[in-house]
């Protein structure tokens, strides 16, 4: 047990660090501009890469002439897919969700055929970034167009054109989880056959773009037969293993460093084509190389997220008791399978039942190829999609039953006294109190007043209507128990590693395998270690993100850092104390059993005044003049933690939404949420994570959508068209917490990185629908553009597709794009 949970801590012990709103250690360099972004890196003789990208979504390369580009000033080399075909291998997919999943392979650079707009076709290597960009214009390529596959529902039909002609259909896999077959629930078809009420809906999870603020960037420096790669990545450790396997560079000859990384949100949880290409080219040329993407490249070629069509059926009794849930998904893989592309919907499979006690559940998912950039992890990865579906269908069921949506939820959710609770999907939920979180959230938002105002606006026929929407969600965090991952055919484990080095001066180095990119690990880990070892917060330095320093690790994603990585730190600290205890006993000439360790000091029970600090022990063992026989002269320690279970944060999110029925404009009036993320190590960081998650979840509901036109061009190819909200587009958030410690780790932490993002989207959509339901609206497609809302209110339906005719895709040649931009009918973009 950690000190945090120990109510009997001695009164004279220093204040606990865990739980304090410590200001972040990371900030000092970030607020002064003394940062180490990958693109800041300059090395002697460094060459710059620019990538020529396909302007067509599907085609055969019939002609590719790079000779003129090679003649351009400053150009050192130009490579095509053919040049690299022998050595480029296939980008890895670590998650074959079914044994017969079809993976057509993923070249880093196209050889004969391009399968999505933005795919790499040629690479210029030049002495400057500018020379490389200029030379792209001198490359001559012809494509023989192939039929473009964009719509999943059409792609799975017999006779649809194929994305990959080596496959027999566009379906990569069919994944099924059936609670009846798994023995975790009853037969689903039976439940539906007997049900008094069933509701079926089709929901669309639009394609999103992670849109981390720092564009991706890679630098590779060869040195003899070794390579150092700096990359704006979330996963230096995984990248190292995978890059070694793909390129054949021996793993021990490859060092990967993630310096300051400007956000990821899953978008930098990838082995990128350009990372492999930089390695291959640095190997060929023996020179350091750099590639930094433009925002246009980033939006067009970094993996996207979400993109599912969801068919959801729910069965219930007339009194509202739920009987069964059936989910069928079409999940857009894009043109290729990247690192965990197929696994994202499968990860969601277990979360559709949410917090409700369904007796029967069946999940089926088809992974579908289309001529678009691959999808992969984006904040929440599978769980936002699941949460959206269940929280939306619960509202639809409430309408069908003419019940209050909250009452329906209360009737079916797991009671606080029922934890640990094994769900119909076979997960064991650890702890929580859904009722308590909901009551607090209702208070926070001022629920009764809002309902009264809603009634007033209804009665007076106000053009601006008010709606209130709920999301009572849970999610699974702390990825992940390695055995569970194994049973799901994931290609790696889910443990995490930490080591602690006690320096002679008493300072402490903590090495973590969990690599941050904005989450504040340095601060939180310091707080944990300060408590564990009783050393000052300032005396702890956290090292990470470099495979030569932190050799073992599985990085940051899936809200796993604190839960798994933080626990590894705790375990390592326990070992340090254990080792120090032996030496302290020796120094104090006491029995180990008589030693107490509090506040960083070993004291002898019953002998006041006799004591030695752990920092002094560090110096003593560095000198090593006097220590017990038979032990090694070190109190450093390392630990690897493999969780036995996931953790399950939960919470209640409430959104109050104004809908202008005349224009369709929606505006969040108030947003309140109460999250239970277990023990809170740093409330400031927790709050920040919730805020950021909310912004992204709300943005899915209201603003963001990656749109392809009929030719497969990304229409939303810049921030002019892909709408990342600014400060003035988002409301103030009222946030709160309840605390029910996780039971799967000694910190009691559940994970907070994704909660806000997972929970908020359905609350927002439910709120908008609640505002206009009385006008006959039962669904509006995301994002809730004013036009869609207006159409749904005035013309029925869900608001429909948005016009996406024409293209402003930045990958199109300058001439094409210029032509497009002078044709008003084909352009929605302004500069």
């Amino acid at each position: 047990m950690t000190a945090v949970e120990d109510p009997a801590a001695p009164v004279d012990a220093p204040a606990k660090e865990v739980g304090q709103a410590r200001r972040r250690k990371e900030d000092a360099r970030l607020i002064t501009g003394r940062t180490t972004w990958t693109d800041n890196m300059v090395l002697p003789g460094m060459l710059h890469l620019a990538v020529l990208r396909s302007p067509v979504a599907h085609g055969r390369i019939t002609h590719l002439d790079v000779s003129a580009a090679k003649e351009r000033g400053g150009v050192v080399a130009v490579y095509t897919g053919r040049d690299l075909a022998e050595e480029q291998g296939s980008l890895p997919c670590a998650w074959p969700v079914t044994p017969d999943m079809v993976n057509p392979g993923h070249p880093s650079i196209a050889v004969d055929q391009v399968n999505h707009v933005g795919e790499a076709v040629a690479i210029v290597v030049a002495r400057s970034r500018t020379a490389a960009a200029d030379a792209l214009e001198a490359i001559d390529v012809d494509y023989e167009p192939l039929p473009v596959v964009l719509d999943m529902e059409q792609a799975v039909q017999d006779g649809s054109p194929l994305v990959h002609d080596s496959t027999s259909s566009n379906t990569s896999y069919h994944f099924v989880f059936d609670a009846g077959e798994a023995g975790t629930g009853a037969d689903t078809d039976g439940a539906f056959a007997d049900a008094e009420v069933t509701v079926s809906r089709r929901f669309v999870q639009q394609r999103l773009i992670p849109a981390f603020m720092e564009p991706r960037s890679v630098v590779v420096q060869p040195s003899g037969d070794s390579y150092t790669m700096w990359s704006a990545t979330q996963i230096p450790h995984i990248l190292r293993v995978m890059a070694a396997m793909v390129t054949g560079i021996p793993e021990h000859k490859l060092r990967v460093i993630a310096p300051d990384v400007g956000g990821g949100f899953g978008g930098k949880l990838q082995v990128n084509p350009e990372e492999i290409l930089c390695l291959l080219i640095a190997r060929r040329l023996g020179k350091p190389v750099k590639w930094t993407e433009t925002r246009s490249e980033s939006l067009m070629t970094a993996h996207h997220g979400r993109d599912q069509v969801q068919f959801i059926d729910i069965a219930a009794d007339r009194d509202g008791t739920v009987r069964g849930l059936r989910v069928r998904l079409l999940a857009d893989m894009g043109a290729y399978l990247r690192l965990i592309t197929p696994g994202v919907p499968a990860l969601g499979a277990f979360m559709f039942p949410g917090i409700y006690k369904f007796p029967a559940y069946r999940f089926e998912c088809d992974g579908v190829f289309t001529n678009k950039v691959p999808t992969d992890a984006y904040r929440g990865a599978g769980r936002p999609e699941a949460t959206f579906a269940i929280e939306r269908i619960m509202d639809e069921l409430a309408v069908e039953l003419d019940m209050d949506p909250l009452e329906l939820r209360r009737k079916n959710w797991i009671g606080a006294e029922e934890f640990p609770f094994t769900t119909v999907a076979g997960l064991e939920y650890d702890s929580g109190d859904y009722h308590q979180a909901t009551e607090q959230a209702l208070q926070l938002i001022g629920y009764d007043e809002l309902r009264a105002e809603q009634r007033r606006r209804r009665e007076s026929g106000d053009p601006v209507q008010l709606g209130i929407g709920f999301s009572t969600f849970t999610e699974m965090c702390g990825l992940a128990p390695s055995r569970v991952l194994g049973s799901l055919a994931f290609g790696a484990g889910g443990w995490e590693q930490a080591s602690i080095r006690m320096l002679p001066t008493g300072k402490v180095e903590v090495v973590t395998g969990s690599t941050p990119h904005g989450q504040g690990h340095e601060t939180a880990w310091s707080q944990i270690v300060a408590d564990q070892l009783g050393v000052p917060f300032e005396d702890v330095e956290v090292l990470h993100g470099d495979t030569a320093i932190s050799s073992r690790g599985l990085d940051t994603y899936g809200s796993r850092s604190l839960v798994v990585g933080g626990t590894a730190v705790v375990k390592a600290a326990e070992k340090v104390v254990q080792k120090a205890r032996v030496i302290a006993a020796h120094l104090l000439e006491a029995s180990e059993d008589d030693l107490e360790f509090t506040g960083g000091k070993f004291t002898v029970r019953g002998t006041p005044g006799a004591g030695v600090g752990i920092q002094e022990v560090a110096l003593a063992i560095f000198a090593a003049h006097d220590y017990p026989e038979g032990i090694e002269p070190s109190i450093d320690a390392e630990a690897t933690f493999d969780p036995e279970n996931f953790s399950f944060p939960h919470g209640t999110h409430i959104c109050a939404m104004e809908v202008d029925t005349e224009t369709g404009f929606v505006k969040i009036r108030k947003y309140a949420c109460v999250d239970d993320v277990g023990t809170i190590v740093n409330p400031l960081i927790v709050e920040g994570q919730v805020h950021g998650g909310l912004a992204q979840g709300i943005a899915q509901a209201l603003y963001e959508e990656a749109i392809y036109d009929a030719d497969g061009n990304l229409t939303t190819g810049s921030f002019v068209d892909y709408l990342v909200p600014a400060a003035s587009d988002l409301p103030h958030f009222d946030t709160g917490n309840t605390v029910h410690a996780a039971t799967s780790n000694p910190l009691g932490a559940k994970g907070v990185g994704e909660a806000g993002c997972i929970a908020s989207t359905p609350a927002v959509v439910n709120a908008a629908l609640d505002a206009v339901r009385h006008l006959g609206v039962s669904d509006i497609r995301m994002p809730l553009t004013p036009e869609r809302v207006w159409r749904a209110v005035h013309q029925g339906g869900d608001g429909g597709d948005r016009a996406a005719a024409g293209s402003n895709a930045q990958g199109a040649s300058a001439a094409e794009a210029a032509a497009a931009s002078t044709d008003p009918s084909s352009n929605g973009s302004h500069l």
Partner: protein
Amino acid sequence: MTQINVRVDGASYQDDVEPRTLLVHYLREQLGKVGTVVGCDTSNCGACTVHLDGHAVKSCTVLAVQADGCQVTTIEGVATGEGPTATLHPVQRAFHEMHGLQCGFCTPGMIMASIDLLEENPDPSDEEVREGIEGNLCRCTGYQNIVRAVRQAAAEMSGTAADDPKAEPAAVDTAAAEHVAVQA
């Protein structure tokens, strides 16, 4: 190549630049002022914001040649003094105090835009702050703590910080912190 003379963060530079060189690329690549970053190619994100002759501009949308004869201040030049003894600008300090940053990539631009805003409006409301930084995108924070930071800085700069309830450290006005006080 065109010759330019610029003062950047208090130092004078004379350099030859290609006319097409963007100010941000000149700062980063020729002067090594890598504190200022590039986040987009359509002038939307504001990550590149610097002060040109005292006013916030997007340095990706100004040519280096246009800065000839001008003063440029970047994030690296807003603190007073140097090294460990430097005094942070109140806006920098407030971003730290109020947890107005996570990954920190948008932060230089946010801080430069906020300083510009406060010069024009020394006591902005939440809404005025939100509008004042509408040209800067942040993907991490959801903006709330940035708004809080700017208001905290405003209070500090006008000397009202001590008795201004808004200026309480972030932890105190969050439900999370209340809970933690109980937990500790």
